[in-house]
């Protein structure tokens, strides 16, 4: 495939996001990463759910599947299962991932399906205009982006989810965090995530400028890991994840282990050699 500079991964469709939305930078960093990795658009699929951020596949030259709310991971798993040669990315927001889609994350992680899951976290529901999300900060001061929302006008006392601690607990083999306001390291994290063999999870802090503008709060909270952390140290990764007043940026944890693709290939070779040639008649004859 001839080299494609980042801008060639752009489609003609114009993003629907509001000016200043973090998702523009998330998208730009993705073009950078695709270009750096020589991603072939005809051999790549981006799967998304529902929400502002889930519109992303339309803006990238590649195959894409804009699914229904919360079902990104099952669909992405099916694609990778069917054709392991494809590069598969799953995308969505914090509501799509952690509220309606939360039940699928542990299973994608423990199966170690070889896909890259990028969650654009803005601590709010943007597309539906400002309702509380599972990561909206609480009035007790935990998390980021606390606010009273149209659906929680009397208080937001629910503890925000801790996505990285959750993914580490679920057994994700690659866990990282990026920030839309720091696009260069974000593109690097993407590259590492896509290269990683197994389920890779990237939380991108990507503020909503209309319903929950958190740039100042996040700018004050971020600390890049920048090689000061051993990514094979699970306990250290967990400690960093639970340092909730600080938003550490970079790769928290990475460990290779057999992927879903490896397991399926092993079942294939274990299957009955007499039938491997696909002789259905022989199989049916067993019912005589």
């Amino acid at each position, binding site marked *: 495939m001839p080299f494609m500079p980042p801008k060639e991964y752009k489609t003609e*469709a114009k993003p629907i996001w509001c000016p200043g939305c973090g998702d523009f930078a998330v998208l730009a960093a993705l073009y950078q990463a695709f270009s750096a990795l020589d991603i072939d*658009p*005809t*051999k*790549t*699929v981006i*799967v998304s759910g529902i929400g502002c951020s889930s*519109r992303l*596949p*339309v803006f990238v*030259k*590649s*195959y*894409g*599947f*804009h*699914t*229904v709310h919360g*079902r990104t*991971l*099952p*669909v*992405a*798993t*099916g*694609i*990778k*299962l*069917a*054709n392991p*040669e*494809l590069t598969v990315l799953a995308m969505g927001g914090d509501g799509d991932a952690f509220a309606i889609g939360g*039940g*699928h994350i*542990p*299973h994608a992680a423990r199966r170690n399906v070889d896909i890259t899951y990028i969650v654009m976290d803005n601590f709010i529901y943007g597309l539906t205009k400002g309702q509380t999300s599972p990561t909206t900060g609480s009035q007790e001061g935990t998390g980021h982006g606390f606010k009273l929302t149209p659906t929680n006008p009397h208080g937001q006392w629910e503890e925000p989810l801790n996505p990285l601690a959750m993914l580490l607990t679920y057994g994700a083999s690659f866990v990282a965090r990026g920030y839309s306001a720091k696009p260069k390291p974000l593109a690097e994290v993407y590259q590492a995530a896509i290269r990683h063999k197994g389920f890779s999870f990237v939380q991108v802090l990507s503020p909503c400028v209309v319903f929950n503008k958190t740039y100042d709060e996040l700018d004050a909270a971020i600390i890049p890991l920048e090689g000061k952390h051993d990514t094979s140290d699970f306990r250290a990764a967990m400690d960093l994840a639970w340092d909730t007043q600080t938003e550490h940026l970079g790769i928290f944890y990475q460990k290779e282990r057999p992927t879903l693709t490896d397991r*399926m290939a092993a*079942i*294939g070779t*274990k*299957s*009955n050699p007499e*039938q*491997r040639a*696909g002789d*259905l*008649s022989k*199989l*049916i*004859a067993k*019912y*005589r």
Partner: protein
Amino acid sequence: MDELHHIVNDVIVRFAGDGGEGVITTGEFFGLALARSGLDIFKVTSLPAEIKGGPAMIQVRVGEEPPKSQGSFLDILVCFNNEVYHLNKADLKPNGVLIYDPDCEIDETNADATKIEIPLTEIAKKEAGGALSKNMVALGAIGGLLDIEAELFEPLVHARWGKKGEKVIGNNLAALRLGRDFAQNLKHLVPFRIQRHPHKGAQVIQLGGNDAIALGSIASGLSVFAGYPITPASTILEKLAVMLPSFGGKVMQVEDEIAALGCVLGASYAGYKAATSTSGPGVSLMVEEIGLASMAEIPCVIFDAQRGGPSTGLPTKEEQSDLNLAIYGGHGDSPRIVLAPANVRDCFDLTIEAFNLSEMCQMPTLFLTDFYLAQAAATTPEPDLSSYEIINRLRPTAEDLKDYKRFKLTESGVSPMAKPYDDATFYIATGLEHNEIGNPDISPAAHRKMSDKRHQKLQTAIDYAEKKGTFARQYGDPEADIAVITWGSTEGAMQEAIDLAARQDLSVAQLHLLLLNPLPDQTIFEFIKNRKRIIVAELNYTGQLAQRLRAALNIQVESFTKCTGQPFTPYELLKQIMFYHGWDTGQSEPVLSQIARVQKQRQAPVPAPGHEGQDAAMAGAVAVSRI
């Protein structure tokens, strides 16, 4: 030698016991042995909801011709204990044969039955290694009573328990022999023997409904199967988990039904045939993704083994009540194909058509099997795989790829579907309304045109069904004033009822629909011409197909429904046919009570075993007994 003897060529035997008594194995072995000796069998089981314990039964109908249904009343009832006796006693024909353990307290219900007491538990405990062998004592006993060769049963013991060691095999073989020995002295009490008749022509296999679906899926070129366990569909997932990897496919148990269909849509989007299996509760969870498949035009097959509903309902009982869900489930107008098999053979043949239609029309296909078919097994000729047409989705040509439009508007509505990796293009599949390229477009023109496109494809299904001519079947007297319309597994019981009615000169015409959406309207209009009454018989409370026919075709049909968690019997359908013909009870009762008895099905001079010139394989098979 020239005496007339009483030979039955259609016999219904039920084995009833507790789940933990191994009663199902008794019935399975009985059916398998007779199938291998050249008879056709049809077998249904009823399991308790409990994992072990609780009443269970297996009913085997044996015939020279393939039985059309489970039948109505029992010729032979074998009871393992008192509880199951009382649960099953009313189903035995008045002059049937009752074989029972002394634990059973036989009452007046079976006053006229031939009663044969066999100490199943005692024999097993005393001489065959323990109560676990009771089921093989029963099998040996029925073999002895009906003169079925011991050699037919013994290989089944070796095949089932071969890996468990000599002791287990020894105990079971002893149980078989002891049951047989005990019964030898009583066999003169049984007034009939089963006619046996070697199969002619094609090799015969014995297939379960869910096995047939699994094999049919493989024949269709299934690549990816994802599912979540649920009664009575789980065995489809289990069988494919064993078999599909040998054919290069992949099977995965996932976290729920939503994930299952999600995986299937992903795999199909990637260009591979994919399917899932579930029951009503699972389909309820899948409806949003069924809409997505319809909107994004992604082929997929969803096997729904229906059970009693709503909610958790009756997980181990029969019902045909997911038709509305299959046709209408979900928001918006989301066209899909709905098919329903009537018998085990359809579970193979129609599965192939389910994939064909789904691929051809690029839309979801729902396949409504049911509890009855899921657990039934029947003999059927071995399918000739070369005789099936396998249809794959339309792929873009080189010309199409130059300016590729995934949702290109075409005359049929079907547009070429690109395959990631293989086709040098790209597109976005989306649940949003979209334009021809696939980009979101919610303009009035886009929604109207794309709605047209999605619905036009249904005509492709109708055209295919009409060309094939296998998606609707007619039975009975084509000229009859009274017509019935059926769907799903009720076809066979209705055909039998029609045969029984014909003997009373009562004529009925039957139209059986395998394609339920889109409806083959021309076939239906043609069928109902000049009828006086049209009745839709189905197993649900509200008459879902009747409502569909009234609403979609504006035709007047009557509804005859049964909602007890049980299948129709030919007997009750016959009764209904008599009613439609204006018979009063004075007229119908004598006929019905005669039909409910063991019939002399054939009287023929039969050579004694070992008679010169007799086919050796038949020796003993048609052993004689005086009426």
